[in-house]
């Protein structure tokens, strides 16, 4: 089927050419396509784009060549002519064209603006899409890689799995191999203080599964070692460049992480991408880890897998599902009933969230291009026809016909060149603007202007310039037009047709603008809702930092608790600090840590299926420090320590899930594990959005810190107005233990803002694009109406002479505008509503057809059309009938 499409595409070539070569072209395309498809779906997609661009470019070239040959020039001739600086017809024409464009700055500027916007917008968008989506992952046969997640009933997030589960999966036929990964931080000993580095802990076959070879060193599979060595580390390229300055002797040297020595055995290549990545920075070091001691229920790892040959993702999912069910039966305490495993293609796992936004972006870009081109077409058409008088005069005075046409085409060409150049400039800044989203999408930093897209957009505009510029140029320079020197009925007939044509063009622009406005309004609504989402906490005046206590020095719970309590005390004593506490994970940006739980007193059947909740650990005072409302009961106190009764605080989502309508205080919960420890619920807090603004809050259970110590905690300080609070914090930590580094020190308010910024940026972009498109369209509307008025001068004059009032005449003009507008509204009704329905499927907070947005857009457009028709109407009313009658 693609072959047929390509065959049709070849019709773009001049007829004699495609008649001769269409078959061969299609065969070659098919053969090459088969070859590219074997290299992967992304290679295939790039091939398709390349081939289409190839056709467009070479066909344009061919047409241009033919046209120029007909005009007595060749490509080479043009080149030589341009090289001649002095006289010569061509350079004169160029200078003349340039002057003509300068004389009419309104026309030129508008045309260039249309071109620039269309070209610019599409260049940016395609550049982004190309960088993010079309580029295949830098692994071997990336289409056979999947990311595996766990899921449990009642919880909508994709969850981690365990190393044991990964092992079981790799034994299955559907999977060739699996590997696990975990992301964390360690302290790397440096010259003065410890430095915090991000470390990926993986199973030893991780890089082998991905098919990655380090550019330096041999990686984890060091030859000659039969006993697996886990004190190895591989550096990322950027880390090696920044910290070790490309020093190749780093291989086989040692670095110290968290107090233990690790031998450097490799450096990854520059284009390596973290398969768990896509969000949140990059991993600086990788080390192998032995996960043998993990139980099957210790689900805290990411799992990637390589599908066996000829196995599809659907097959893999079915197999994984069966395995999950079997495992749940075999280990009912660790995995609950309803436990499932899901396989997602790796590319989608990384970029899936972004894809829907990209689609919208692509669509918007297409619309802007269409609006721009249609505007341009109308403009060129009108321009060509208006100048027919001038052209005919020149012909009568002896100018060669081709000379005139050539000069007009040069004018159009200049517009295209300037428009394209300006568009590329806009695209450049557009890309810069998009990089605001960088903290969410790191790959965006590599986004570059794609040459193919620029070429495509320019080619498109050139084609339009040819299509809409050439015929009027040809027509107006025809000797047969000599009759048009007189404004006879023939001329008026032609003008009427022009007006109708232009009205049609503008009408279609209005339709597009209206649709675009509806889309923008909907997007704005969604974005606005998203940015106003109640996060559940109060970030103003709150600062946080993370501490990771090295396991070698703090190997037991006692040591951890002692250190953290001491630190909390010190921090609380800093002047200006209102409250201090610690929690294991702060809101926003956390990945799921969902664990199964049990509820005392509720038989399994009544609860339905087992569900899981997020585990959290917090010190007393955390909720008030973070500004999370306590809805019922009490917070943790110092009395909730290891020796006391086990307690817990749950969030509202949890309470509503398990005991809807009841008071959960006093009830008991326990985590699903071999040794069941019941905790009594003592309080209920408000829901916090831990996973992102558009993810609904999940049920959570907090345990007090002494009862579930964690060496990695984030400390939260409420100290509004205290500058340098983090410096105090660093000092306090250093006082206790110099080797423990502070990391992720941040201002909670700014951090929260960062999450909203991309949405806000997108909102601004949507608004900007819409406003521009509408502005351009409305200029077009007033242009058409003004043109109509000037063409209908005789008719209007007669009407006025016959006693019609000026108001009547003005109303005629307005009616014309409204007719166009009304038609546009009618035509855009269906597409707008359909689009709204489609978009509401994947934008936050929308539902159904969003009729109010459509109505708003419609009334806006209609009122603007009326506004635009004011001036032409006014001018029509002021026509002096006597003058007009005289001219007839």
């Amino acid at each position, binding site marked *: 089927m693609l072959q047929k499409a390509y065959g049709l595409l070849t019709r773009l070539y001049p007829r004699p050419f495609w008649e001769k070569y269409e078959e*061969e072209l299609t*065969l*070659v395309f098919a053969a*090459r396509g088969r070859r590219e498809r074997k290299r992967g779906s992304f290679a295939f997609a790039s091939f398709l784009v*390349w081939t289409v661009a190839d056709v467009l*470019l*070479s066909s344009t070239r061919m047409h241009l060549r033919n046209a120029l040959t007909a005009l007595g020039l060749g490509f080479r001739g043009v080149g030589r002519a341009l090289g001649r600086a002095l006289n010569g017809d061509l350079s004169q024409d160029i200078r003349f064209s340039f002057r003509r464009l300068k004389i009419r700055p309104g026309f030129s500027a508008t045309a260039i603006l249309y071109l620039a916007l269309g070209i610019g917008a599409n260049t940016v968008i395609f550049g982004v899409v190309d960088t993010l989506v079309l580029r295949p992952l830098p692994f071997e046969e990336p289409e056979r890689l999947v990311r595996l997640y766990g899921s449990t009933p009642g919880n909508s997030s994709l969850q981690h799995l365990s190393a044991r589960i990964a092992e079981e999966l790799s034994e299955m036929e559907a999977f060739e191999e699996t590997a696990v990964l975990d992301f964390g931080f360690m302290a790397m000993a440096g010259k003065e203080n410890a430095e915090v580095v991000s470390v990926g802990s993986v199973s030893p076959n991780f890089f082998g599964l991905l098919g990655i070879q380090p550019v330096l060193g041999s990686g984890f599979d060091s030859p000659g070692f039969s006993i697996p060595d886990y004190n190895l580390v591989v550096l990322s390229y950027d880390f090696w460049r920044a910290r070790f300055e490309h020093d190749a002797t780093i291989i086989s040297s040692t670095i110290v992480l968290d107090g233990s020595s690790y031998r450097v055995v490799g450096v990854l290549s520059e284009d390596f991408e973290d398969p768990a990545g896509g969000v949140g920075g990059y991993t600086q070091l990788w080390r192998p880890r032995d996960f043998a001691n993990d139980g099957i229920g210790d689900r805290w790892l990411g799992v990637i897998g390589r599908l066996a040959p000829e196995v599809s993702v659907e097959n893999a999912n079915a197999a994984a599902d069966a395995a999950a069910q079997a495992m749940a039966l075999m280990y009912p305490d660790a995995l609950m009933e309803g436990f499932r495993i899901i396989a997602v293609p790796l590319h989608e796992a990384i970029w899936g969230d972004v894809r829907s936004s990209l689609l919208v972006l692509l669509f918007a870009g297409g619309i802007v291009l269409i609006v721009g081109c249609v505007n341009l077409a109308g403009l060129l058409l009108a321009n060509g026809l208006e100048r027919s008088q001038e052209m005919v005069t020149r012909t009568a005075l002896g100018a060669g016909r081709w000379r005139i046409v050539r000069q007009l085409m040069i004018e159009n060409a200049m517009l295209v060149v300037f428009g394209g150049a300006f568009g590329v400039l806009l695209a450049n800044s557009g890309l810069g603007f998009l990089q605001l989203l960088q903290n969410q999408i790191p790959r965006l930093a590599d986004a570059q202007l794609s040459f193919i897209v620029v070429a495509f957009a320019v080619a498109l505009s050139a084609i339009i310039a040819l299509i809409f510029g050439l015929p009027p140029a040809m027509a107006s320079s025809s000797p047969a037009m000599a009759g048009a020197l007189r404004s006879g009925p023939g001329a008026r007939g032609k003008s009427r047709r022009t007006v109708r044509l232009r009205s049609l063009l503008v009408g279609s622009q209005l339709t597009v603008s209206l649709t675009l406005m509806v889309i923008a309004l909907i997007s704005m609504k969604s974005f606005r809702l998203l940015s106003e989402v109640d996060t559940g906490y109060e970030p103003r005046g709150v600062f946080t930092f993370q501490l990771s206590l090295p396991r070698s020095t703090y190997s037991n719970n006692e040591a951890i608790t002692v250190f953290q309590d001491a630190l909390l005390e010190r921090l609380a004593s800093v002047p200006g600090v209102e409250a201090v506490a610690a929690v294991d994970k702060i809101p926003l940006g956390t990945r799921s840590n969902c664990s199964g739980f049990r509820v005392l007193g509720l038989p399994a059947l009544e609860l339905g299926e087992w569900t899981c909740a997020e585990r959290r650990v917090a010190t007393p005072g955390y909720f008030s420090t973070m500004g999370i409302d306590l809805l019922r009961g009490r917070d943790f106190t110092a009395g909730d320590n290891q020796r006391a009764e086990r307690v817990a605080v749950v969030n509202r989502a949890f309470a509503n899930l398990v005991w809807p309508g009841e008071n959960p205080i006093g009830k008991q919960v326990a985590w699903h594990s071999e040794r069941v420890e019941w905790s009594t619920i003592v309080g209920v807090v408000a829901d916090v959005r831990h996973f992102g603004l558009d993810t609904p809050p999940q049920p959570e259970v907090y345990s007090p810190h002494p009862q579930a110590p964690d060496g990695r905690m984030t400390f939260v300080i409420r100290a509004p107005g205290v500058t340098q609070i983090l410096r105090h914090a660093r000092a306090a930590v250093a006082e206790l233990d110099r080797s423990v580094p502070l990391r992720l020190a941040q201002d909670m308010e700014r951090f929260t803002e960062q999450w909203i910024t991309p949405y806000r940026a997108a909102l601004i972009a949507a608004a900007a694009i819409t406003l521009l498109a509408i502005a351009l369209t409305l200029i077009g509307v007033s242009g058409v109406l003004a043109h109509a008025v000037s063409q209908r001068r005789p008719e209007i004059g007669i009407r006025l002479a016959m006693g019609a009032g000026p108001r009547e005449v003005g109303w005629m003009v307005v009616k014309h505008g409204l007719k166009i507008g009304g038609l546009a509204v009618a035509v855009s009704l269906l597409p707008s509503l359909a689009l709204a329905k489609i978009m509401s499927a994947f934008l936050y907070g929308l539902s159904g057809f969003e009729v109010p947005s459509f109505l708003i857009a419609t009334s806006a457009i209609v009122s603007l059309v009326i506004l635009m028709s004011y001036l032409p109407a006014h001018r029509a009313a002021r026509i002096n009938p006597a003058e007009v009658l005289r001219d007839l």
Partner: protein
Amino acid sequence: MVLKDLSDVLPLSTKSFHILMAVAERPLNGYQIMLKVEENSDGVVRVGPGTLYESLHRMAERGFVNEVESAGGERADGRGQRFYRISPLGKKVLAAEVDRLSADLRIAGKLRGIRV
């Protein structure tokens, strides 16, 4: 088509040059030319089908290559496919272009610090 002298057509574009080289030894069909060009240049020079046939068409018009129906008994897909063979004129043009390039290289070789 009669050329006044070869300076009218030189320098050849990279694509034309590579395509001519591809068919210099034996006749090839379009797909084969495409692959040969990429192979010869280690993937540096890529021609799409459209550009390829555009060039072939032009070169055929100017007499650098001849179109041959299924040369040497090779039939791809069982259908008569067009094969392209370099013509004597094409050989002259190719030789002239190689001379030109070599001359440039010789000059570059004389520069200190540049290895040719």
